[in-house]
């Protein structure tokens, strides 16, 4: 309703900061992070907005989200350690296929990094990384099947319960990562490998490496510690 009207302030002061307009971050929060303004030197607040962190919103949000995921698994870990001290704990045989899965997930992270550094061949590398991620998920299912074949089910003993649940929750996070990678791929197929694709890919990469690191951590918790 006050389109174009200068702000009425008390004291009758009309301040005239430089003309600014604001970009819509309405349809996709991740699509146009305010870092645009930041680097463009204009836009919403522009260069004079000195009171902010040197990190774009999307990245900051992602890091905070990873903090919550870390706390989620910290909760699982503390439950695991307490339960491990119980009287009925029986160590689980490690399904050998886990090594294959682990290698697939780590290789996937490597492919992603190569892809980010080669914008021209980006789609191929990212596709490879995504497929390896899917392979990891498939391998995890095979690990479950191998255990089931040995008669080890979810309620069999606390270690097996934790194995199924932790791999399941981790797998759900990997599925999220795969979906994110697929959305970047879709964007890359439509838009080529412009700045927007690279920016989104950078966010995906942070998440993807986190999920990979998380898997290594879970391996240690489940079978080494």
């Amino acid at each position, binding site marked *: 309703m006050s389109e174009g009207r200068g702000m009425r302030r008390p004291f009758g002061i009309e301040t005239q900061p430089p003309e600014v307009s*604001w970009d*819509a*971050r*309405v349809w996709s*929060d991740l699509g146009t992070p305010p870092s645009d303004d930041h680097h463009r030197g204009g836009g919403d607040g522009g260069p004079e*907005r*000195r009171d902010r962190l040197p990190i774009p919103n999307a990245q*900051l949000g992602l890091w*905070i989200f990873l903090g919550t995921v870390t706390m989620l698994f910290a909760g699982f870990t503390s439950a695991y350690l307490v339960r491990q001290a119980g009287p009925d704990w029986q160590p689980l045989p490690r399904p050998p296929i886990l090594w294959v899965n682990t290698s697939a997930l780590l290789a996937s992270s490597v492919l992603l990094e190569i892809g980010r550094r080669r914008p021209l061949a980006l789609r191929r590398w990212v596709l490879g990384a995504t497929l390896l991620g899917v392979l990891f998920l498939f391998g995890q299912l095979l690990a479950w099947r191998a255990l089931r074949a040995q008669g080890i089910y979810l309620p069999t003993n606390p270690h097996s319960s934790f194995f199924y649940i932790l791999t399941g929750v981790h797998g759900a996070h990997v599925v999220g990562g795969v979906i994110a990678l697929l959305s970047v791929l879709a964007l890359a197929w439509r838009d080529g490998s412009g700045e927007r694709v690279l920016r989104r890919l950078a966010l995906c990469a942070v998440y993807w490496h986190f999920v990979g690191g998380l898997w290594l951590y879970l391996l240690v918790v489940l079978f080494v510690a």
Partner: protein
Amino acid sequence: MAIEPSVHAHEEPRSFWRRYIFSTDHKVIGIQYFLTAMGMALVGGILAMLIRLQLGWPEAKWPLLAKLFPRGMSGGVMNPDFYLALITMHGTLMIFFVISLGLVSGFGNYLLPLQIGARDMAFPFLNMLSYWTVVPACAIMLASFFVEGGAAASGWTAYPPLSAVEQAVPGSGLGQTLWILGMALFIASFTMGGLNFVTTILNERTRGMSMMRLPLFIWTLLIASILGLLAFPPLTAAAILLLFDRHGGTSFFLPSGLYFGERVLPHSGGSPLLWQHLFWFLGHPEVYVLILPALGVALDLLPPFTRKPIFGYRLTVYSLFAIGVLSMIVWGHHMFVSGMNPYVGEFFAIGTLAITIPSAIIGFNLIASLWGARLQLRTPALFALGSIAFFGTGGLGGIFLGNATSDIQLHDTYFVVGHFHFMIGGVTLLALFGGTYYWFPKMFGRMMNERLGKIHFWLTFVAFYAVFLTQHFLGLGGMPRRYYAFSKFEFLAPIRDLNAFVSVAAFVLGVAQLIFLVNFFWSLFRGARAEENPWRATTLEWVAPTPPPHGNWGETLSEVHRWPYDYSVPGAPEDFTPQTVPPSVVEVTR
């Protein structure tokens, strides 16, 4: 590419659905949260009234209620399972779906961008998603009353085995599953909201709005959001494990040797205490998630009505940080009676006593802000003062409960109920009301009725003390928590009348809230038109038009030149100097 700043964003979405229902505007979302919380408060309040009806007159028959609740009150007498469901859902709804939604998400969403001079939250779409995740959560919680066996009955703390064994009590069946599902959605929503809050506060401040120029309410939101983000995920982990105990046959929280009917349950080796630890690792920070923003509202409501700056801004900020850190390591004081190692208990007791120091500093700053004030006792000011009184009273009881030695005596009595309600029921509720009276003119462009507001305050304030201070003494007299009726205990015969008194006071408290509802909706349509800055306050939201348009700030963003509490600055033309006034007009001190 989306690098071009879009011009359309300035325009409000035109369709009704995009404007009022699936809106990404933080103000609409804030009001949506607020109204949702109000609806849930109505339900939670009715549950409280039913609880008091039972505790005040345990043997009485209520034929009318038998018609309303054919299962829970069959024959007009409340059955014990229904009572358990009532206290469980009263706690759950009030804590998570009223105070969290109204105070943190409601006021938070509405005020955050306005007070820091932003156009919206950092992630508007995520913000909408967070609201529309909590709506099904509310629906699921409410629906759980109507399923087979009724709502969850294991307390808002959901202790196993009641919560983990489906056949334990009727509410342990589908009701408990729905409870877990509702909480999962709530946590998902809160995580989205908290993430948005932190990012917005850190990254969306306008020019000149340094961290040390933030209104204290924003500081409390920041600390509360961080606490929530750190504390909720471990509860999520625990809830996942609980679900598998219930439906997957695992034994995380269930020990061996549990019998139900003639049958031994197959579980073995689990530990119910493990749940308690994981729960309270959330549960304790959660109370700070609620009370810190309440204190923030009280801190921000004082200056406009004392016409002087808040006392000890920096120290308050540091104290908030100290509370934030300490609150993560004191959860064990909820478990002193669980048979923990006395040395561990000592650790938690010392931590708890340590947290009273920053809390007392904030309390002192609140009181010191009144020193030399030209106090204007408008309704928001009354509520702010009331919440300080509750904070003091509740805090005093907290000292006894934080110490293992005295807590072991008091833990399972009404002393805890009284203390808890002063802090999480009282301080937060008064802040919620005070904030509503204060920001209503900005939200809706009309003033709330002052006379009704004052009646609402005094009835609430006096009745609240009558209910919950009395409960402290009931607790000292040995009245245990969680009991369905006290008529069977000889030693509790002397306090029976006192219980009836508490119930009557509780009904007064309940009826007083109807005055608020009437005032709210009457003022919405018939209230006096509000000026842009009716309280002559300094913070940024009062510089925006009333009610603020989509995008908040017209063509240009405000620039901030000073801290938010420049009241009665010597030499200034007015006794309040808004944050946007440049140094050329009034000298900047901080």
